[in-house]
Every structure is written in structure tokens, then in C-alpha cells.
């Protein structure tokens, strides 16, 4: 448990430091170049209720669990 908490804390602190120092990064894909990314087919969670169901189907029959994704957001298309 201690190792887990240490790992977790180090990851999040490193993320904080990294993000604090990188606030001036220029986006290399401009907003007007994101038409393809805005297409509904370019969404990891295109069918969230169906994805959640399949995750449940696999979790009930496999030992592996976690990191299934679905935290949303990402392409900044809107």
C-alpha cells in the first residue's frame, strides 16, 4: 500500500511540476485543422452505454481490470 501511495504521489507531483513549466507550449495542430478530429467517428467513447456494457462482460470473466478508458474529452474540437 505504501509503495502504491508513493508511486501515485510521485506521478501526480511530477505532472504538476511538468504542467507548471509548460504553459506556453504552442499547439501544433491548429483549431482550423481539427475537422477530422471533430468527426463523431473519432471518439473513443462513441457509444458509452455499449462500451460500459462490454467492459462489464469482460471484467466478469477475466482477472484483468482497470485502465479501460472512458475518462472523456481530449480532442478539443468544440
Amino acid at each position, binding site marked *: *500500500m*505504501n509503495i*502504491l*501511495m*508513493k*508511486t*501515485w*504521489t*510521485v*506521478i*501526480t*507531483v511530477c*505532472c*504538476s*511540476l511538468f*504542467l*507548471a513549466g*509548460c*504553459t506556453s*507550449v*504552442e*499547439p*501544433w*495542430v491548429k*483549431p482550423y*485543422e*481539427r475537422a*477530422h*478530429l471533430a*468527426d463523431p*467517428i*473519432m*471518439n*473513443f467513447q*462513441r*457509444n*458509452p*452505454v*455499449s462500451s*460500459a*456494457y*462490454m467492459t462489464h*462482460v*469482460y471484467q466478469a*470473466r*477475466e*482477472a*484483468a*481490470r*482497470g*485502465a*479501460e*478508458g472512458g*475518462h*472523456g*474529452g*481530449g*480532442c*478539443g474540437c*468544440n
Partner: protein
Amino acid sequence: MVVAVVVTRDHFLFVLCLLCSTVPALAGVLPDDRADVLYHSYDGGGVDITGPSVLVLKKIGQNVAVSGNYYVDSISSASIDVVTTASKYSEDRTEVSVGADYMHGDSIMSIAYTNSDEDDYESDTASFGVSMDMFGNMTTVSLGYARSWDTVENNNDPSFSKDVDRQNYKVGLSQVLTKDMIMELNYEAITDEGFLNNPYRSARYVDPTSPVGYSYEPEVYPNTRTSNAIAVRALYYLPWRAATYAEYRFFDDTWDITAHNIEIGYIHPLESGWILEGRYRYYTQNAADFYSDLFPRQDSQNFLARDKELSEFTSNTIGFTVSYDFVQNGWYAIDRGSVNIAYDHILFDYDDFRDLRKKNAPVGKEPLYDFSADVAQIFVSIWF
């Protein structure tokens, strides 16, 4: 800036606050208003599971979105475990979830609560998450924490009641790589503490005094488990308005289980409002260090498992989804509507779990078990 690392649970929330405070405010995006009604069916290995799932997501004002999900599993089970050591049963599991998202600048904070209830198992989960868009909305970083409180009961013993506490820690990164490609990286650690085995399941051991050559004893699992999973996914837009995706996930835990899965898929829209998707998934895992199909004698070790989900096996899934947008350009209050049919066929091949329905085989030499499952979904999605 923070340099000292103090390992406490409160520190997790503190780091979240730190992360929030060091990121410039841009513009986050709440999910679209939508409603989904799904009916699902699973048929495989002697198990039939059907039921509905209803999801509603609605924005309230500019900065808040609320969601609710109602899900039911109606289970009729005559699985190989049930056939060989128990009797067929039926039960329902009902799951209700509510959640809320609050957007502030480029950050979205989420809270959710889920209750899952069945005859002999109840689970309550509370979760908190934060995600932030940054670098010109090309990057989304998310953090999440969830805690579950479960109660395990036994329908054959009204006095039996055991607790399980579970904690989930998630980190996610979603990144626009090019104007045609997006990827995401997710890590999740889960810790469990409490009664982690199924109170009905038994382990098998060699018993020369038994007419069949073996007997059963209750499974015994460790009281703790910690697992780590990391997954990378990529989605690529093809030149002819189609998309392809790929996923890889690595998993390991303190029970010495290691698992890998890959998935690839292809999404092809047609001009008439149809969208076709095909996919393939491969999964493999090794066994928990306390798993055996046949233990050499009774009480041969401290922990005993004969759950096939903890054995060494592989599975292959091939599936497709067909979607049709029946509302494409708005109709009264509906912006868009689609009807969808999905089907997946899964083949499970076990490397160390034997089919005990074959009575004439020598003990420990019975044929290995395998089965296939048909998973079907039909659902309607409406955006409003």
C-alpha cells in the same frame, strides 16, 4: 513549489488541488445532452444474462451536467461450476448510478455514486475525478479516485456477511498527435481488502476414498489484492472518411496474474447515415499463484482457488456494430438519433481448467474446458 512527499490519503487530494492550481484556465467542454436505451443479451457457457441499460446525460446551465444510469442483469446460470458442484439458479442484479460534472475554465470536476444490489452481494461506490484540457486543447489530463464498500452474503447461510473495501486510483492522458490521430494513455491501480472469494465456489483435491477420485473443499483467497493496469489506445482518421483504432493493455497484480489484451477495429460511415464497425480482440492471462485445477490433497496450502477466471486462458473476440442515424439534421427537440445493433462472439480456451462433465476420464486427465459466448446489444441513442 512542493518538494516534500508525504504519503497519506489526504495528500492525494492535496496534490489534486496543486495540479488544478498550476494549470492556466482555457475552455473545457461538457459532454453533449444525450439519452441511450440499450437491451443486452449474453449467452455462453450455460449462462444467460439479459436486461436493459438506460443512460441520460443533461446539462444544467453552462457549467454543470448531470447523469443517471439504470442497469439490470437478469441471470440464469447453469455454468460448468454450477453443473458440477451446485444447482442451477436465477437472480437479478440492479445497478443505479448518478453523477455530476462541474466545469470551471478548462477543468471539469466529476463526482458519482453507484449502488449495485443483488440477493447476496451489495456494493456502494463513490468516485471523484478531475480532468483538464491544456496546450490549446490538444492534451487532456485526468485524475480519479473511487472507493467501494461491498457486502458479500450467502443465500445458504443467512448469518454469513463479509465486507470488502476497494480503492481505485486513475491517471489518464489524452493527446492530439496530428490532425488525423489521437491517442490516450491510462493507468489504474486498484486495491481490495476483505472477503475476496465467492462463498459458493469450491476447490478440487485428490481423494482416493471418493468413488470419483476427488473431493471438494471451500476456496480460500488472500484478504488483499492490489492490481496495476496500463493501457494505450490510438484512433486514426483515414483519407476516405473512416477510422481505425488499436489498443494494448498490460495488467498485473499481487496474486501473480499477468494479462495482456489487444484490440483493433475499423469504423466505416456510409453517406446514407449508416456506420459500420468491425473489431477483433485478443486476451491472455496466466494463473494466480494459488490456483490449481486439482490440489494434491485436502488443505494442501494456505490459499486455494479453482475459479476459472483465475486460471491460465486465452480468449478471442470478433464483433461488429451497425448504426443508422434516423435523425441526422434535427427533428423537433432531437438534434440527432441513431439505432444500433452490436454483436460479439467470444471464444474462451482454458489451459488448466478441466471439464468434469466427462466422467470416464482419469482424475486430472479430463479434457480441458472451452466455450463460446454470443453477446448481442440493441440500443437507441438520442442527442437533444
